[in-house]
């Protein structure tokens, strides 16, 4: 178990220095839009695609957690406490994975365009939401960060946000009004994608792993199914889905990556019993579950069906 004190302090420090919990520079993480074709199609709007950087950060987090996993419960666990603040830039270069996750963000943005949704993207206004600080019970750190983010967005006249992962959606929609006094209209991309088509059967059957925040906190599990229905993609739900979905173990990976791995394995076993292709809709679930077999992000499947 990594000591929560150490974990919280380093997340707090990193967020203060760089705006994200890993302490990486923004130019290193947020690159998905470089060379993006859709760039021409988005303009000056008050609706902004707000990725919250979670997809982009996840490959780095995953690399780091790999190290933490190896060191957990060994003498090296304590050594990690004295590591320089941000050795990650040098240590972790998950090039291929970063490209994969950037690709997911690009596919989501492309699908939004395809669906006829008007929005803008401003990399300099796309910030990490601060969710980890909130989860860890560091309300002070979270409040400070959320005030900073909200102010930046307000300054530039942003009123509506399109989010792409469950954690950022929850934090911006449910917590920012309370902690940052910021009432943005927050829509998750799965709530607004609408291809207005009734497609023929795509010949895939999925089993969906609903993120806990879509299933319970936000209660929007039906949205992904609505989109799949319109694309003619079938799915076979298991008991532990929707409101009863089970966690992938991700949220405790900074405290006990070993326990996270066991939880994820259990969940993967359960999902794979249907024999169908498994799809997730959260970057954290994706990296945790794919350690045991093939998993796709639902946005990749949607994109594939729309562009087929």
């Amino acid at each position, binding site marked *: 178990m990594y000591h929560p004190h150490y974990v919280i302090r380093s997340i707090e420090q990193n967020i203060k220095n760089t705006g994200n919990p890993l302490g990486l520079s923004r130019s290193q993480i947020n690159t998905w839009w470089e060379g993006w074709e859709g760039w021409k199609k988005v303009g000056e709007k008050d609706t902004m695609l707000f990725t919250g950087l979670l997809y982009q950060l996840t490959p780095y987090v995953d690399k780091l957690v790999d190290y933490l996993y190896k060191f957990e419960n060994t003498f090296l666990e304590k050594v990690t406490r004295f590591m320089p603040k941000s050795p990650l830039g040098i240590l972790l270069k998950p090039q291929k994975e970063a490209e994969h996750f950037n690709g997911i963000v690009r596919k989501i943005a492309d699908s939004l365009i395809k669906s006829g949704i008007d929005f803008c993207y401003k990399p300099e206004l796309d910030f990490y939401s601060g969710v980890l600080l909130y989860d860890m019970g560091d309300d002070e750190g979270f409040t400070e960060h959320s005030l900073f983010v909200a102010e930046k967005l307000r300054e530039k006249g942003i009123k509506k946000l399109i989010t792409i992962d469950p954690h950022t959606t929850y934090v911006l929609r449910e917590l920012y009004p309370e902690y940052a006094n910021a009432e943005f209209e927050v829509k998750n991309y799965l709530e607004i994608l609408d291809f207005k088509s009734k497609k023929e059967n795509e010949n895939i059957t999925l089993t969906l792993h609903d993120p806990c925040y879509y299933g319970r906190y936000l209660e929007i599990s039906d949205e992904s199914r609505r989109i799949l229905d319109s694309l003619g993609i079938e799915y076979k739900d298991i008991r532990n889905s929707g409101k009863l979905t*089970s966690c992938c173990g991700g949220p405790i990976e900074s405290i006990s990556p070993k326990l996270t791995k066991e939880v994820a394995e259990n969940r993967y076993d359960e999902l794979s019993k249907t024999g169908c292709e498994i799809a997730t809709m959260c970057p954290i679930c994706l990296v945790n579950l794919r350690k045991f077999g093939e998993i796709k992000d639902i946005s990749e499947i949607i994109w594939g069906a729309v562009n087929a």
Partner: protein
Amino acid sequence: MREEDIYKAIKNRSIRAGILRTWENLHNAVEQNIERYRFLKEYAKDVKMAKLEVFSDYDRWTEKAMKSIESRNKCSVYYAEDGKEARKIVAEIVGRDKIIVKAKSMVSEEIQLREFLQEIGNEVWETDLGELIVQLANEKPMHVLAPAIHYSERQAAELLRKVGVKGYTAAELAEGVRKFMRQKFLLADVGISGCNAFSAKTGRIFLVENEGNIRLSTTLPKDYIAIVSIDKILPSDELCLKLVILQAAFLGTFPPAYINVNEPVEGQRMHVIFLNNGRKQAPEFLKEQLTCIKCGRCQIECPIFQITGSLWGNVYGGPMGMGWSGILGEIGYECFLSSLCGKCKEVCPMEIDMPRIIRELRKMMVRGNNLGEV
């Protein structure tokens, strides 16, 4: 919680096997109960409201509860502020060199009563089959209602051989234990139980079970001690009955085989000890946890608990255990092992917002810089 327990749990795969097996056996039954007996939801609301009302004025209700039974013949009533005081009272009643039969009771785990009574020179037997297995293994219960959930039949058989019970199948073992226990019941000087619900109106103690051993432990011995933690006090018999029905329905065993309603009877001395142990002093955010009826559903459905069992936690493990540890003043940084996924809240009959409680505990630790050395 000791940190190494988590790694012990990860290695011990029979914990997850047992919990998942129980989950698979019971979750359909629970869902059917909820579907079929629509009144359960209403019962839960009534009980929760009544409990919150009792907590809003613990002193008055405890006094009322104590009075309701004090006036009875053959009954002594005590009040214990904490575990230490409760143990002292029990020691004075019991003395030493006695045979004691115990009904399964989490509150007695909370104050480590069995170990204490053994230390002062008594022979103590857990009469619930699962609890007896845990006693023989010298472990703590792995789940509030299914203490030996992590033992296979073969492992259970091995442990039971320590007390001369023979056999291999569940039926053979149950029969063997029944014979063994019958003799203890007949010889026992003292019976001890906890309490699922206490009626402040009539002074009756409600206990629900499936094996029948609670009935025997509490009726056969000459002295009967009931430990009633004050969160068990409810205003009426009706509410107590609602609570025991809920507890059974939400574990999946409904209708329960036995509902015991205990009160002082001729030929037996009854001793009722009301126990506070942190409940009155619980901060506002923990009040909701006190409405818990300890059905253990949040444990079985929790993805972390499914790996660790109650090794994650102190007396009570899992999501509800975090809140209870807060009440008992023994929360440590195990509360950072919850993923806050919210499944516990979703399945809890009392709709207790455990993720909120766990985050509040974290906040308390972060704020108070109460995270220990770095």
